[in-house]
Structure formats: structure tokens, C-alpha cells
């Protein structure tokens, strides 16, 4: 987290602006791309960046600019799905669970705490193995959910004096939960969602890079980086531009979350 609130606000605003630009780019990817996904151009294999191909071409002669745009589009879409799962099953459930009867709430906190301690990538690979590659975004979202649960759970101040007074005047627990969801979760929803987006993007891309996630002919940035491994030392652009797109997506999400990804409450 930044030292000064002003700098923190500026960085968060920059992060959201970056995510907005990425969203516009992704939604216009079919128009911005010079060629449809997977289309090859004979005679131009591993061509260095030039006017005709600003990002160069890959081993199969595909335009890397078009491929990177298509890859960014698919990766961002899957990451968004996974982040939604993480926010709903993690953040929202954590905020609700904190208000459950204390023994139940603490048991849930303990269980989710154990899952949060396991690397999310391993959980994702395990979940994909138990289901199918198609469910990779769901698996990544569920794997990122425990950490979001723990964060949201610990953020709820159930022992606050105003809550004690409210209970003493007969205000039901449901109303107190509504207070938390209205004033706390709504306030932190942006950072929870952005943090989940960054986490799920890393998990999905890494899983694809390792061969556990998306498989050809799907376009995925992790998969594209993996495909560029063979030619990277001689044709750096085959892996560098997909990696750059991935870095931009993750950096913007982390900036939007306030740069506190990885911090435990």
C-alpha cells in the first residue's frame, strides 16, 4: 500500500483507468486485430517486428499483434469469470459468514483458512484434474476464493460497540449483516474484485503455461508464452508481447486493488 492516501488514490485511479482501456481493447479486439485468430501467412515465419507486423510473426507465420489481442481477450474474459466466482464464493460469503453463530463462523473461518494456506495454483490444477479443462476459470475462481473469504471475514468487526448497542435494542442480526454489506463490502468490493482478477489471471495463465489449462487452438496468453518458448532466444517477440500484455493486465488489476495483493489481514 502506498504511504500517502493521495498517492494511493492516484495509483488506484490509474489502475482502474488501465483496466478500462484493456476492457475497451478486448471488446474491440476483432476490429483491431489485423487477422482472425489462428490465421497464418505463408513465407513470413518468425518475421521480426516491422511496419506490416508491428509485433512480428510466430513460427506458423501468424501476426503476433492479432494473436496477442485475441489472447488478451480470451484470458481477460476467463479471468473475469473466475474473479466473479472468487468474489461471490469468497468475499461475499466471508462477510456473511462472520455474522453466523460464533461456533459455525469460526469453524468456517478455520476451514477456509486452511485452503487459503495452500497455493491456489495447486488447488486449481487439482480441481481441473477432477473436472475438465473447460472448467478452468471456475476452478481458478474457487481456488482464489479462500483468501478472499478470509479477508472479508476478518474485515467484519462483529464486536463493535455500536453493534452491541444495536443488539441490545433488538436490531436483528440480518439488519446488522445488511449494514456490513452496505457499508463495508460495497466499499471494499472494488479492491476485492480487482485483487481477485489479478490472482485469477496469474493462476489461469500459469496453469495454461504448464499445460493444465487452455489447449490449442484456444487463444490464451499463458499458452502463447509456452508456445514461444522454443523460439524465444532467437525470436524474442514471440513470447515477449504476450508476456507484456499479461503484465499490463495484472499490473492494472493490482494497482486498482491498492497494491496490497499478497498481504494477509
Amino acid at each position, binding site marked *: 500500500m502506498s504511504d500517502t492516501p493521495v498517492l494511493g488514490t492516484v495509483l488506484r485511479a490509474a489502475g482502474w483507468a488501465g483496466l478500462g482501456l484493456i476492457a475497451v481493447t478486448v471488446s474491440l479486439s476483432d476490429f483491431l486485430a489485423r487477422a482472425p485468430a489462428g490465421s497464418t501467412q505463408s513465407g513470413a515465419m518468425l518475421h521480426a517486428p516491422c511496419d506490416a507486423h508491428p509485433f512480428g510473426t510466430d513460427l506458423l507465420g501468424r501476426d503476433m499483434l492479432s494473436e496477442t489481442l485475441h489472447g488478451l481477450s480470451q484470458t481477460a474474459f476467463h479471468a473475469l469469470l473466475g474473479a466473479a466466482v472468487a468474489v461471490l464464493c469468497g468475499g461475499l460469503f466471508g462477510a456473511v459468514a462472520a455474522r453466523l453463530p460464533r461456533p459455525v463462523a469460526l469453524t468456517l473461518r478455520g476451514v477456509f483458512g486452511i485452503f487459503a494456506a495452500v497455493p491456489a495454483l495447486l488447488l486449481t490444477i487439482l480441481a481441473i484434474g477432477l473436472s475438465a479443462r473447460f472448467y478452468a476459470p471456475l476452478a481458478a475462481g474457487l481456488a482464489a476464493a479462500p483468501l478472499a473469504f478470509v479477508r472479508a471475514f476478518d474485515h467484519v468487526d462483529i464486536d463493535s460497540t455500536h453493534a452491541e*448497542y444495536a*443488539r*441490545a435494542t*433488538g436490531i436483528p442480526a440480518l439488519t446488522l449483516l445488511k449494514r456490513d454489506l452496505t*457499508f463495508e463490502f460495497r466499499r471494499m468490493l472494488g479492491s476485492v474484485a480487482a485483487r481477485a482478477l489479478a490472482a485469477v489471471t496469474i493462476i489461469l495463465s500459469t496453469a495454461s503455461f504448464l499445460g493444465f489449462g487452455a489447449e490449442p487452438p484456444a487463444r490464451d496468453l499463458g499458452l502463447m508464452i509456452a508456445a514461444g518458448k522454443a523460439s524465444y532466444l532467437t525470436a524474442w517477440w514471440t513470447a515477449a508481447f504476450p508476456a507484456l500484455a499479461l503484465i499490463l493486465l495484472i499490473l492494472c488489476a493490482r494497482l486498482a486493488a491498492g497494491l496490497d495483493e499478497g498481504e494477509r489481514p
Partner: protein
Amino acid sequence: MSESGPLLEISELNVAQDGETLLERFSLRLEAGESAIILGESGCGKEALLRVLGGFPDKNDSITGSIAFAGGESRSAAKRLRPPIRIAYLPNPLSQPFAPHASVLDQLVRIVARKQGAPLGSAREELRLALERLSEAVTPALLDAKPGRLDPVTQAIALLAAVSAGTPDLVLADHAMADLGPGAVRMMLELLAAERKRLGFGLLYVTGGLQPPARLGGRVVVLRAGRVVEEGDAARLMSGHAHAYTSLLFRALPQLSFEAVKPRPARGQPLLQVHALGYGPAPQDSLTFELRRGASLALVGEDGSGRRALLRALLAFEHAPAGRVIFDAVDLNVLSQKMAARLRRRIAFITGTDECLDPRMSLWDTVEEPLRAHLNLTGELIAGYRETALKRVGLASHDGDRPVASLSPFDKRRLQVARAIVGAPLLVVIDEPLRGLDAFGQTILREVLTDFRITHEPAFLVVTSDFTVAQSLAEEAMVFHEGRIVERGAIADILREPREAASKALIEAVRLPALPPGQASV
């Protein structure tokens, strides 16, 4: 220190912030050993004056005017002051002046060492001697703890000891004893007066309350909206021969009435029945009493006397070791949580710390919540009830979307009353309702609460250390001392003929004798 001129001379001091004038053409001359009390409501400019004199102005403060110390050369007040005299700052212990995670003793020793330019060992010894003079109970060993473990009165004595150990030429007291309870305020003012007499320091006491001028006497400067309304001797200003604003301010000072009043007959069914309720550490700390509908009872005692322990047991915040509490003919302790919640909706709280308000909620949400939680009303009806309640307390013109955290203490207190009004409670628990308010705020809130009681007729359970508050809001009282109830009965009777020393001390703490001109009462 030079002997040739006044200790402090402020000339034409102006302080403004973002175009708003906080202090206008303020001048003051204070001789060595003299005291002056700066009196006014919140925002009258006294805070700005302290910021300038204390050397901690806001970065947005625009300051003009000059200040001279000890007859020296006048310097611009906008520049950093380098006074040739020793100035000590005496804050209010409730303003959390200590760092929370360090020993109070260590923090005070460092302050004394810096003020005296002495080694830490020497400063520690000076502080020990000052503590010995001030109180037998407050020792260096006791102060070797984090501030959260020490009560405010202990902290106040420690702060005064640090001031005294620094042998200052001038002391700036910043609402130093506000909200400590009348008994503690009286004791602290006596200690301050004794130390001033011994060390001969000048005193600039900034306050919004009326106890310091009434007890310390001497020169009083009345400020309003940044301007000096009047300056004169405390005795004259309190006598009524004063500016209309000053007279109004002093009339806000609550006075005990010792006249025999006809007691209101107990009427209605019993609302709160307490049978042998255990509330203290000892087995004999049990209580039996009855509060009828529309009646009122004050639990009077100094902080730490056991009132809140009883209150928490009464309202089942904490499980009482023995006894029964019957509210509206139902035993609270045998009900399920859901059933108890239904009954509890007829209880409202108004606290002096505003801790029963959720700071995140908006003004409107705070008032509407009890209606939405308990009654199935249309939005139109809810808005109607909300507006009526807000009008009753004078908050109807405020922006309804403002978060509670941004409201002033006075507005928060009125908001609590509005929330209580919409709930149509049978019992209102009022805990030190005037704490943290200036004289006018106290008067208005007292009137709002009295009006609430007359129009809605709830029973009042008042927790306070101030008999004037108890008398204005209740008819009967139980006096607490060291964890036990020492006296109970009609307040009028207790005031006329107190039987116990604790009751007498509490009454004496709020009885303000007439001041002879130019003389202190302590």
C-alpha cells in the same frame, strides 16, 4: 526570563482558514503569575488561539498579528515562535494525548527531560516528587503502564505532575479537565490552583465549560465567532452584570435546586423489575428495585463506582451471576434470542460517547433503521416519522446522506435522540448525555431530552456523575460509591439531606459558591 514586561502579550492576532475567520483582532496581556480563562462555545476561536500559542498551527491557517514573551521584542505570530520562557501544555486526558503502545511514565519523563534540558534520571525524580505532592494514589509504578490501562483521572493527575515538574513560566490548559466528572474536575482544579500558587506560573485556561471560571475565578475572556465579546472578572460576569451573550452563557450553567418539590406519584404498571440482581464482585452486591412506566431513576456516582456494571447486568449485556430482570412483565433471561429482540426494541440508548451510533451509516439511515427493522411500514410513512423526529431535535435541515462520522458531537447526540424518538421506547437508558458538549449544547440537549420525556413519557434510566444532570432528567436516584449503592431515594430528599459522605461529595462537586470579585473559590 526578563522581569521587565508582561509574560505574554498578544497583539491584533488574526487567524483564518480557507477564507473563514477563526479569530479576529485578538489581543491579550498576561502578567507573570496571572491567569486568564478563555471561554466560549466550540468553534469560537479558542482552538485557533491555542494552535498559534502552542506552536502547532494547521497548514491552512493564515495568521497575522504579533506575540511577545516576557517583555521581549514582538514577533510575527505567523513565524515559528521561539519563546524565551518555558511553556507547558496541559491537554485533556480524554483527547488521548499519549502514544497508545508506550508506558505513560516513560512518555512523561521524556517530556519533563526535554522541557528542563535535564537527563532522564533527573527528570524521573522530578516527576516522582511532583506526583508525591499531587496524589498519594498515583505513583510512578502505577504510571508504568500503557495509557489504555489507566483511568482518565489518573492520567489527568500524571499530566499535571509532568507540567509541574517542568517548572513552567506559562501553562496552556486545553480543556484540561472537561468531562472528567464534577468531583474529579473540582479536585483537579484545586490541584492546579495549588501548583500555580506554589510555582507562580501564568495560566491560560481554554474551556467551553463553566466549572473552571466558576471555581478558578480571576480574569475571563469571552469569545464568540472569533471575537472578544467581553473581558472581566469571573465574579462580575457570573453575577448577571455582563453582556447579554455572557449572561446567557453563564445561565447555561446548571444549578442544583434545593427547594422541596412535590414528588411525581408513581403511576402505571411496573416496567422494569429487578430482583436480587448480582452486579458486583462481592456476593452481597445485589439489588432489588422497580421502575414504573414513565418514571425515572438516576444512577449517580463517579467513574468506576459500579454504575455501568449494574447497567450491563440490568440489560443483560453480560450474564448476571444471580437475580432476575423483568422487563414489561417478561423475564429477559429466560427468553430466546429472537423473543428477547422483540422486547428489546422498546429500549433506547443515548450515550455521551456516541458509541451506539454506527459511524458508517448516513443520518437518515440511522433514524430509519429501527422502523425498518421492526415495523412493516411503507417508505412514505418511514420518511414521515423520520422527518418528524429530526425536526424535534433540530436536525431536519441537515443533509440526510451525511455519514454519522462527519457529524459534530452535538449533532451526534441529537441524532441519538431522534433515533430513540422513532422507536417509541418504553425505557430510555441515558449514559452521561452531556459529555463533550459546550455550555449551550448541554442546555439544548437537556431541553430536548426533557421535551422527549414529557411528550412520549418513556421511563428514563440515567447514568451520570453530575447531580445537576440527574436532577434535570430524573426524580429518584441511587448513589454509587466504590462498587456499592450507598444511598437511594428521591433526588430532592438526597440533595436536601444527604446521609452518606459519597452523596455529599457528589453534591458539593456541582455546588458553585458565589465568587468574591477577583478571588478563586478553590
